[in-house]
């Protein structure tokens, strides 16, 4: 297994922005939208055979003409402010039928991504994913930021609409970021490279649904572009976020009243943009969240536990 380079540009102090699929595909949508908006060029790819099972076959007139694998590709773009390398993985390399990357293949892929980052002189990596939160889908997603060093905390707490783990209700600074969006932070730390994971919030009741949650991606992009000082056209992402909210609202209207009542209570505990101006006590909030958890028989979790 190896890395195949398509171009070898001279990049000045680039940052890397990486994303793999996960809950609501929040990270991957964000990274891909930024890459497309900046019209980044392909830089390299990771050979897939050792990591993935094929994902598509094409047969024409009885002959196998193509067999394709999930792509793991690097792109680059020079901007006025910064040079950027993008990495997007179409799948996470898994072992034993798990959803998220784990084990030797995940570790190997994380190292290959960082090999490319270091080859071009990256000193900062951003990854992106989802944070499952007691959020109503009509509210604006916050972004949970996890850096891989204490020194970066000072920087990330200044980001707009962003909280660190100790700012998340009930977390006390603890948690787990599953899959490669998290593992890359750890492997970067091991190599002494700064890395930050930005996770857009997704409502707890959508974590098991196969829908992309573009509102979470939009929040991630707002933070990421501000942090990098890069302008990007947000029209496509805004459109996706509006469409996503509209579809969810249509679906929501079809739910039984009892379910809607439970979900509406989340509006009261949504921190970033509560629709109701009526204040509730911490005790009320705790009770509502416990009720909603019981109702859905699920704990908040997912990529960010």
């Amino acid at each position, binding site marked *: 297994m190896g890395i195949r380079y398509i171009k070898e540009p001279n990049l000045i102090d680039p940052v890397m922005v990486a994303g793999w699929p996960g809950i609501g595909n929040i990270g991957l949508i964000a990274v891909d939208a930024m890459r497309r908006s900046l019209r980044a060029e392909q830089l390299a790819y990771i050979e897939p055979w050792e990591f993935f099972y*094929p994902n*598509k076959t*094409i047969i024409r007139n*009885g002959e*196998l003409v193509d067999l394709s694998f999930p792509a793991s590709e690097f792109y680059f773009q020079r901007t006025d402010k910064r040079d950027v390398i993008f990495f997007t993985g179409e799948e996470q390399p898994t072992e034993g039928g798990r959803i998220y990357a784990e084990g030797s293949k995940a570790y190997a892929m994380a190292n290959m991504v960082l090999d490319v980052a270091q080859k071009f002189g990256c000193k900062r990596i951003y990854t992106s994913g989802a944070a499952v939160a007691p959020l109503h889908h009509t509210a604006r997603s916050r972004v949970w930021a996890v850096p891989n060093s204490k020194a970066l905390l000072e920087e990330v707490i200044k980001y707009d609409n962003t909280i660190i783990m100790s700012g998340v209700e009930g977390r006390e600074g603890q948690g787990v970021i599953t899959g490669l969006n998290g593992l890359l932070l750890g492997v970067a730390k091991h190599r002494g490279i700064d890395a930050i994971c930005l996770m857009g919030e997704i409502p707890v009741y959508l974590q098991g649904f196969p829908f992309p949650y573009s509102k979470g991606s939009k929040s991630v992009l707002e933070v990421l572009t501000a942090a990098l000082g890069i302008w990007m056209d947000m029209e496509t992402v805004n459109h996706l976020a509006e469409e996503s909210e509209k579809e969810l609202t249509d679906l929501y209207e079809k739910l039984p009243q009892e379910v809607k009542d439970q979900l509406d209570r989340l509006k009261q505990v949504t921190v970033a943009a509560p629709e109701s101006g009526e204040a509730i006590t911490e005790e009320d909030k705790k009770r509502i969240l416990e009720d909603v958890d019981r109702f859905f028989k699920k704990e908040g979790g997912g990529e960010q536990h």
Partner: protein
Amino acid sequence: MNASAVTQFHDRPKLQNTVLIVGWKEDASRLAIRVADYLIQGLGCREFGEILPEGFFPMAGVSVENDVAQFPESKFHGSSQHNLVIFKSNIPRAEWHRFLNALLDAAQECGVREIYTLGAMIAASAHTMPRTLISIMNSGATRVELEPFNVISNTDYETPPGQKPTMSSYLLWLARQRGIAAVNLWVPVPYYLLPVDDPRACKRIVYFFNSKLDLGIDFTMLDAEIAEQNRKIAGLFEKSPEIEALVRRLEVGEGLDSAESDKLARGVLEHLKK
């Protein structure tokens, strides 16, 4: 001599210009393994090697099937008289690329010139209808070779979203990279025979190999199985005209709704299992 670190040969038969037949144990209706076993027994093939399971299968206990503990197997059987190798294997659960390359390494050591994989397709057809044989090949040049054997070879297909290509397609693709001709052979099997056996489908594939490779196979046992299954299903028709009517509708290409399909499948299964 070992083809690779994960393959072990013992007492390998003398082979040249060999044909390799691959049967996966997880195939629908167990058709591939039925065919492989029939050929192994009929031709007196003997086991001569294996791909070791470590790394390809989870070693986290054993599964139990029909009261018996199972263990993954990937074994080579051969006949020097017929220059034939038959590989029977569970589908690996990990490291597919390495596994298939180990298989192709072994194939090349055995002088394999041509590979066939076997499989059943689920079909909304009646058991009374003739079984067709469909081929997917990794080289257009093979088409001419298959023409005399009444094989359908004009399929168009793309993997639907959410599904994955078969292990056999993966093998075809890797074989092409090594310049080895490979063909997937598929027989549509009536869906209501999937939980039991379809000896007619088995015979269709064995008949193909017998004709193409001039093997001199004795079909007596398969013919007896077909006759026995026909007799049993005829008995079911006598007891249940409703089931017979459903099969007759399939014979003329009429579709069944899900309740009717379910009724037919359950009726046949219960009767044949008795």
